[in-house]
């Protein structure tokens, strides 16, 4: 597989009161179109990723809505796989391009979360779980808290290990002007913040965020410019929606499967990965990702991060965007943001958080508690 990332665009992530979902999507998309150098009429399809807007705003048919707002005619659709919506939309675009259905596809991930209250958002996000989880009042943080407790009991992972993820990602975000929380935090602040769901404090959880991110994917590998960055692997794996039905609470099997498939497609091994954007919806998720993607052994994720290997300047930086925790998590936009961050690192556009010698990156996007996982390999 070799699909060009011809252009990217991303809005600020945060509480964007004066922006609507449609304006966010347009902003990101127009930036991506500009970056690509393409004309609007060269874009044959618009894939829109979004999770909750249908519920919170009663607006469906987002594909057609956003395409027509942009003045783009052609195919349009909306993709949903909870928090993996963005990655999945990119995956579908790669498949369409490989099938030669389209030459240029615009993929936009957008989420507007701050118009409704915290209880409604908590409920809307529980749509990623199962009905029995909803009836039990088992919230989205609750699901990951159960995994964290299991990991802590089995491998001795501590609250400090969890806090280390948050501290690192905030450090990265402090160099990202698009991030929701562009400031550093101390371990103490993370540990002493209010408890939301044992053992998680406020700083173990990604925030509620508005934002949009877009990429233009193209089968045209030749037309020059500075952006020689390609998707070389795109894989999806599924698991049970119900956490209680999983084989193990200590891993996301779908991460392992998708990672193996994507690496194979790209013809690279895990040791070839220079940089990664992983799905830290909660701090434990980044620890699990290090293990399940294959960067370290099962159970050693906490120490792996604490050693500093994944901090900017270390051997393999992870989540230089700030991750979901500090950059923000406009649900369906995250998968796109991750790919854009890696593309920027490869293109040398990451500003103060630019890492050195980046040629091959991995993006890891998870839906819910791990029922859908999408992994992309991006290379120069």
């Amino acid at each position: 597989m070799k699909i060009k990332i011809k252009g990217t665009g991303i809005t600020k992530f945060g509480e964007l009161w004066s922006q609507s979902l449609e304006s966010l999507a347009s902003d990101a998309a127009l930036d991506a179109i500009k970056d690509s150098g393409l004309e609007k009429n060269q874009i044959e399809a618009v894939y829109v990723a979004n999770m909750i807007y249908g519920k919170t705003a009663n607006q469906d048919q987002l594909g057609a809505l956003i395409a027509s707002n942009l003045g783009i005619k052609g195919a349009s659709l909306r993709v949903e796989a909870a928090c993996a919506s963005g990655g999945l939309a990119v995956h579908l675009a790669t498949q369409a391009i490989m099938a030669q259905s389209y030459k240029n596809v615009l993929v936009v991930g957008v989420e507007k979360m701050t118009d409704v209250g915290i209880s409604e958002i908590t409920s809307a996000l529980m749509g990623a779980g199962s009905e029995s989880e909803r009836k039990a009042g088992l919230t989205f943080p609750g699901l990951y808290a159960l995994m964290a407790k299991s990991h802590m009991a089995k491998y001795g992972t501590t609250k400090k290990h969890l806090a280390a993820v948050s501290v690192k990602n905030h450090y990265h975000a402090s160099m990202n002007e698009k991030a929701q929380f562009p400031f550093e935090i101390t371990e103490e602040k993370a540990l002493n913040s209010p408890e939301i769901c044992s053992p998680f404090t406020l700083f173990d959880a990604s925030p509620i965020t508005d934002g949009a991110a877009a990429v233009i994917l193209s089968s045209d590998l030749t037309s020059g410019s500075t952006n020689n960055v390609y998707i070389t692997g795109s894989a999806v794996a599924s698991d049970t929606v119900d956490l209680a039905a999983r084989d193990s609470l200590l891993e996301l099997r779908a991460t392992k499967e998708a990672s193996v498939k994507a690496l194979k497609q790209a013809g690279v091994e895990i040791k070839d990965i220079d940089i990664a954007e992983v799905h830290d919806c909660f701090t434990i998720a980044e620890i699990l990702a290090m293990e399940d993607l294959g960067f370290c052994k099962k159970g050693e994720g906490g120490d792996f991060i604490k050693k500093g290997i994944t901090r900017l300047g270390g051997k393999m930086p992870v989540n230089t965007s700030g991750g979901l925790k500090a950059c923000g998590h406009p649900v369906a936009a995250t998968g796109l943001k991750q790919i854009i961050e890696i593309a920027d690192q490869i293109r040398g556009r990451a500003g103060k958080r630019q890492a050195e010698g980046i040629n091959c990156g991995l993006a890891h996007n998870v839906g819910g508690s791990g029922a859908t996982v999408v992994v992309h390999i991006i290379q120069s």
Partner: protein
Amino acid sequence: MTKPAEIWREHKKLHSYLGKQGKLLVWTKILVAPVGFEHQTPYFVGIVILDGERMPVQIVDADEKQLKPNQKVEVVIRKIGKAKSEDVIEYGIKVKPI
């Protein structure tokens, strides 16, 4: 939120769980609740195993100190969430430690 036909179907399943006992595998304490559960916070939720079936349930009548891995639990029937004034009440399975 609640749909009478769906509740009717779900209620029919409750009979087979009466009196069941099992154990608690893992649990958490929820402090930020979704719509319909705000009045219950803080509450405990966990994954239990009942007759070989693993399921997520709310844990009631429990003291935090009581909850240990493999804690023995028993099924109780309680109200699920909080029905809006014009809605049908949903009853469902929860567990309490024994």
